[in-house]
């Protein structure tokens, strides 16, 4: 499962890879030195850009929500720093057969209300996700009748078909374990406003539109948080978030606007933390529209686009990275050997001529109206005008945009995708498999039997190496089809106060604040 955002205003705080100083992190947080004295301050204020609708793991997945949930709930497995599934609530697990997985739960875990966490709760949590209507497809591959609880601390699940991403899926926060008793008593909706989990933090309060506050769980089954309280503040306006960070009202700001990165870095009161995420930004041709049916037209326009300029202008030189494939460089299977459609007007014209479109044509570009997208659109418009293509801009209000895109009404749009399962195959399937045409992730509506074939195969290949290889194949095929114009891999830009220590930009966006503390 992956998260796609069609808005490109500011890259939402997303998944980051590995820990400090490791590959993905370009600008790590300041490290602790011996001379510094630990401060007694024990409240951390974290600012983020939008308010989740609910804190129920079941709800629609928004990055911020997952992050807060991550601190309240635990999952059976979790990604470690190398983005491999590793034990969490499940001490150990094994695949019994092609379809069956067995998880052995820890016995020392208690929910915040004091009740022990048992396999019943796990089954309940998984069933809930399967029954949900709120767009959560985390459990669609699992057999709802196949969950078993042989004893209180053993949980068995079956997939409907052989599926390579089962472990990754179990790591996903949608499959957080919730207390059956509490949920049944409170009802789903109320639970979403005042959740009870087993995580490192207990839910304290939620002031609508303003903040969500959690508190250290002193009974936590592993290392407890250093700080007592975390206050997640909702500040929608990017500029205000930055100013609040600079003025000290906020300790950590997620989703820093790219324009503010330098300022935060230079300011002695703040530090900049940049890490590569798993997010693409691209322009998608609607392959089902007549103009773009011909692969050559798509390739031609790819040549006609100065992608690097767009990236630098719209996403920042240092806050994004050149995109060279649909799969982010941080994911296994990414290949960097693809022959890029380098900016070349002549080649573009040639290809257009071949396709019989040398006399130019008009294309409508539909995108969410915001300033970043406007810049992108204007740049594109100017570039394409050189090959005789008239780009008609259609900035669209958010409410109407998704509906239009879901109907495939657009000819061209821009979008972004986050690979939240950290499995390229899963993401590619949603974006490019014919099955998924006209769904929220498949903005190019590509339908190619060859691609489908490889993607299907990835799905059932449990060997990671093999899978990576197939992913490479898929990338090549897709690249050749040219459904996208690659713009950028965006990075996660986080601002923090200069006194903040111990923050680890984890790959999962479920930032773990347990290790965070302040120095004087």
């Amino acid at each position, binding site marked *: 499962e992956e998260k796609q955002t069609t808005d490109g205003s500011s890259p939402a705080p997303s998944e980051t890879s590995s820990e400090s100083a490791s590959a993905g992190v370009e600008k790590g947080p300041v490290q602790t030195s011996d001379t510094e004295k630990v401060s007694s301050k024990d409240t951390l204020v974290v600012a983020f850009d939008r308010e989740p609708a609910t804190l129920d793991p079941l709800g629609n997945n928004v990055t911020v929500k997952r992050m807060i949930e991550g601190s309240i709930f635990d999952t059976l497995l979790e990604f470690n720093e190398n983005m491999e599934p590793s034990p969490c609530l499940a001490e150990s697990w094994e695949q019994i057969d092609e379809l069956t997985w067995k998880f052995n739960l820890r016995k020392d875990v208690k929910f915040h209300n004091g009740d022990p966490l048992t396999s019943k709760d796990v089954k309940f949590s998984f069933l809930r996700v399967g029954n949900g209507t709120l767009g959560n497809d985390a459990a669609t591959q699992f057999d709802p009748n196949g969950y078993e609880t042989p004893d209180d601390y053993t949980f068995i699940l079956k997939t409907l078909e052989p599926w390579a991403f089962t472990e990754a899926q179990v790591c996903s926060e949608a499959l957080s374990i919730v207390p059956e008793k509490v949920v049944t008593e409170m009802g789903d909706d109320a639970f979403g406003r005042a959740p009870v989990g087993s995580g490192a933090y207990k839910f304290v309060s939620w002031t609508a539109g303003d903040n969500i506050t959690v508190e250290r769980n002193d009974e936590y089954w592993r290392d407890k948080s250093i700080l007592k309280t975390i206050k997640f503040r909702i500040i929608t306006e*990017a*500029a205000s978030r930055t100013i609040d960070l600079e003025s000290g009202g906020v300790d950590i700001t997620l989703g820093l*606007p790219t*324009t*503010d990165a330098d*300022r935060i870095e230079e300011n002695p009161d703040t530090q900049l933390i940049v890490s590569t995420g798993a997010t693409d930004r691209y322009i998608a041709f609607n392959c089902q529209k007549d103009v773009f049916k011909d692969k050559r037209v798509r390739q031609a326009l790819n040549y006609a686009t100065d992608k690097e*300029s767009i990236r*630098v*202008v719209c996403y920042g030189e240092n806050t994004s990275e050149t995109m060279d494939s649909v799969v982010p460089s941080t994911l296994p299977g990414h290949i960097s050997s693809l022959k890029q459609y380098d900016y070349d007007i002549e080649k573009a014209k040639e290809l257009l001529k071949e396709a019989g479109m040398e006399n130019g044509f008009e294309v409508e570009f539909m995108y*969410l*109206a*915001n*300033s*970043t997208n*406007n*810049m992108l*659109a*204007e*740049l594109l*418009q*100017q570039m394409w005008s050189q090959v005789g293509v008239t780009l008609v*801009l*259609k*900035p*669209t*209000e*958010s*409410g*109407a*945009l998704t509906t239009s895109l879901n109907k495939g009404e657009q000819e061209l749009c821009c979008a972004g995708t986050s690979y939240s399962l950290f499995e390229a195959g899963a993401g590619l399937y949603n974006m490019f498999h014919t099955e998924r045409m006209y769904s929220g992730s498949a903005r190019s509506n590509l339908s190619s039997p060859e691609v489908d074939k490889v993607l299907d195969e990835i799905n059932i290949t449990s060997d990671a190496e093999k899978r990576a290889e197939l992913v490479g194949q898929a990338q090549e095929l897709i690249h050749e089809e040219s459904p996208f114009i690659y713009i950028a891999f965006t990075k996660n830009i986080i601002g923090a106060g200069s006194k903040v220590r111990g923050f680890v930009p984890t790959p999962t966006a479920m930032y773990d604040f347990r290790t965070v503390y302040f120095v004087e």
Partner: protein
Amino acid sequence: MEKTKDLTSSSEAGSIKKRSQVKEVWRRFCRNKQAMVGMCMLLLLIFAAIFADIIAPYDPVEQDIINRLKPPSSAHWFGTDELGRDIFSRILYGSRISLTVGLIAVGLSSIVGCALGAIAGYYGGVLDNIIMRCTDVLMAIPSILLNISIVAALGTGLQNVMIAIGISSVPAYCRIMRASLLSLKEQEFVDASRAAGASDVHIIIHHILPNSLAPLIVQATLKIGGAILSCASMSFIGLGIVPPTPEWGAMLSTGRDFLRDAPHLTAFPGMAIMFAVFAMNLMGDGLRDALDPKLKN
């Protein structure tokens, strides 16, 4: 006799030509210093709008990524924007749309509002009640919702944006007009006109409107800046002017992201809007005074 005296003086002054009301107002307007300053400012803007092609040193949509976000310099008087376009040129071209939006949207709403207000005030009774309750309803609905729906129903485009902005500010004019009508229609000169056989429409146009223009003008000139800004906020959510067409409000909103690094992106369009508003206000006040023959300059 007095009469004969007046008559004799009339023969020598027989050549005195009857001056039309418009000319008269114009004459008084010209004598008002502030109004003239305002008008010069506005003429400057109109001049800029008409001759933007000639004056503008650059193509307003020509991008120059290398030189983006450059502060004001001799090459670019107002600096360059986020895509390296010359802000001065964009402001010149932008005056076309911004002035049109400001003037037409305000004009539209004031005309519709006045007409409704006049009907409500003049005829009173049920009609009055219906119209005023409708404006109450209209006033209570957030203008962004109205704008989204109107544009969604009519489609995007400058024309519809102006209609949308216009409609959402109709109630204010309607109220003002009605209020002044209520007191005006009781005035004796209205009866005098009726006694001469004038129709209701004649009375409203020739007597009531000129006498109730002052507050309307103040309101309208104050609203012009507002109209430009609401056009911008509509563009901001994708309902207004489509980029890259230069438009002050949209420039202002885009500049918002660069407010701290490149303040000139917001400062200049902002000043342009204020300049226009200021000009309109000066002119509006001058016009109000000119319309009132009692006020001598």
